[in-house]
């Protein structure tokens, strides 16, 4: 079982101070698949990725990465495991003091003894995959938002990790780059056997490239299935999300005190 599943998540709970964000998540992610995580803004998708990478610790439950419980690893073991993970941050997180080339070369220089000539070839290859080979000499502040994201993608696949987590890879891309990136994610998974987790709001695009979808709402998995199952689903939640309807089980507002109270119209005097 665990040999074919790269990641197993069992009863995962997490809260920021007193606000419970995740309340008992179960997931399995087989090797070589593209798995998509969808959910409203603020539903805890980024938090889930940070739990998988061991950046934060769950309050209960666990994430297993090829058999190892992530939050129980020693610091050295965690760092070793992270070499097998790539992460594309929501806002790129390129190193602003390094050029595009040096950003992509960063991990090769830190973790390998490859000669500079080979690093050069590899970096240009990775940049070519995202269509930015010609931009290798630019600094991050000379890139547009979408270009920065593509460079960050090239950087996250620099060491051919076995897992890549993409946090919103499609936002801010023009339709052409969007297709290119979507297909790239699929191709990396198929040809290199990587496993991909794609956090996204872009339902239509992602349903074309993923193998399995999880919907998070209210801290639990609200629905899951293959793209086909999801498309045909009649569950009100899934329907609302896929068709972007305003009314439905997913609330648009961040929960707090009632509107009446905020406007001080309530009968409760202070």
């Amino acid at each position: 079982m665990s040999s074919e599943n790269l990641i197993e998540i069992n009863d995962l709970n997490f809260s920021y101070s007193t606000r419970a964000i995740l309340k008992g998540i179960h997931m399995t992610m087989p090797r070589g698949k593209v798995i998509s995580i969808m959910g409203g803004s603020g539903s805890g998708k980024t938090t889930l990725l940070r739990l998988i990478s061991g950046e934060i610790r769950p309050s209960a439950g666990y994430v297993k990465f090829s058999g190892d419980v992530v939050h129980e690893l020693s610091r050295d073991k965690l760092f070793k495991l992270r070499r097998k993970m790539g992460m594309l941050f929501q806002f790129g997180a390129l190193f602003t003091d390094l050029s595009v080339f040096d950003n992509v070369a960063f991990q090769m220089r830190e973790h390998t003894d490859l000669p500079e000539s080979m690093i050069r070839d590899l970096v240009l290859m990775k940049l070519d995959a995202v269509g930015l080979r010609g931009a290798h000499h630019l600094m991050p502040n000379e890139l547009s938002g979408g270009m920065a994201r593509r460079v960050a993608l090239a950087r996250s696949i620099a060491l051919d990790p076995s897992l890549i987590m993409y946090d919103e890879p499609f936002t801010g891309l023009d339709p052409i780059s969007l297709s290119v990136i979507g297909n790239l994610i699929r191709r990396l998974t198929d040809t290199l056997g990587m496993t991909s987790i794609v956090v996204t709001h872009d339902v239509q695009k992602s349903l074309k490239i993923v193998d399995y979808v999880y919907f998070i709402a209210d801290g639990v998995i609200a629905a899951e299935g293959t793209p086909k199952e999801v498309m045909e689903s009649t569950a009100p939640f899934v329907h609302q999300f896929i068709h972007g309807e305003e009314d439905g089980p997913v609330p648009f507002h961040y929960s707090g005190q009632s509107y009446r109270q905020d406007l001080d119209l309530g009968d409760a005097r202070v």
Partner: protein
Amino acid sequence: MHVSKHIVSVIQNIGHRVIESVWRLGVGSRFFLLVLLKSGTSLRRFNLVIRELYFTGVLSLIIIVVSGLFVGMVLGLQGYETLQKYGSESAVGTLVALSLVRELGPVVAALLFASRAGSAITAEIGLMKATEQLAAMGLMAVDPVARVVAPRFWAGVISMPLLAAIFSVMGVLGGYLVTVVFIGVDQGTYWSQMQSAVDFRFDILNGFIKSCFFGVAIAAIAVFEGYDAPPTAEGVSGATTRTVVTSSLAILGLDFILTAFMFRGVS
């Protein structure tokens, strides 16, 4: 009744602030030790430090050189005015050199360094944190304390004494310019008085030691404030201000303590 309540809340407030500061000092010291522990990478790959030396040291050169020159010129003018009343204007070289080497060189250079380079280090590390660069580095299995913080710390520590020395040299030249070239004090007197009065061990070495302490203090405060900054625009700007204020106070406090130790019973 009301007044006593007010007093209690004031006292509570003071107590709260004291506890907060002591707590922060503790956290800061622990971070300082962590940086020292993780300095291996900086020593093994010294080019990381050299790169930062350029940003902290070389780019601070202009302000240090210009300020040193002016401070020396003012010292020369004021010293000449005063000494002349007692007919001992020939001692002006001694006055300029001793003031600079013992006190003004290390202290003024350190204050300038804190506001020029210390604030820049804090802002850079703080912004790297706010834009998730440090988190991204951690996820690439590279320790940001070893790779980002430690090289900046050591660059600060190395730059400070060198900049203080350059400041003093420029000050002595500034004094020379004003007193010898403009006012007409005898050139031979200026230099020879200076040479016989300035002691290597007591003056130059002690000044150097002072500037080393200042360098460690500024660099430690700057990297800590940056690493500890809340990851927002206000957080980073607040941290930058705190770096300048805290390190300036630290410089002045350390200067008093070090002076008390070094020049005790010398004169």
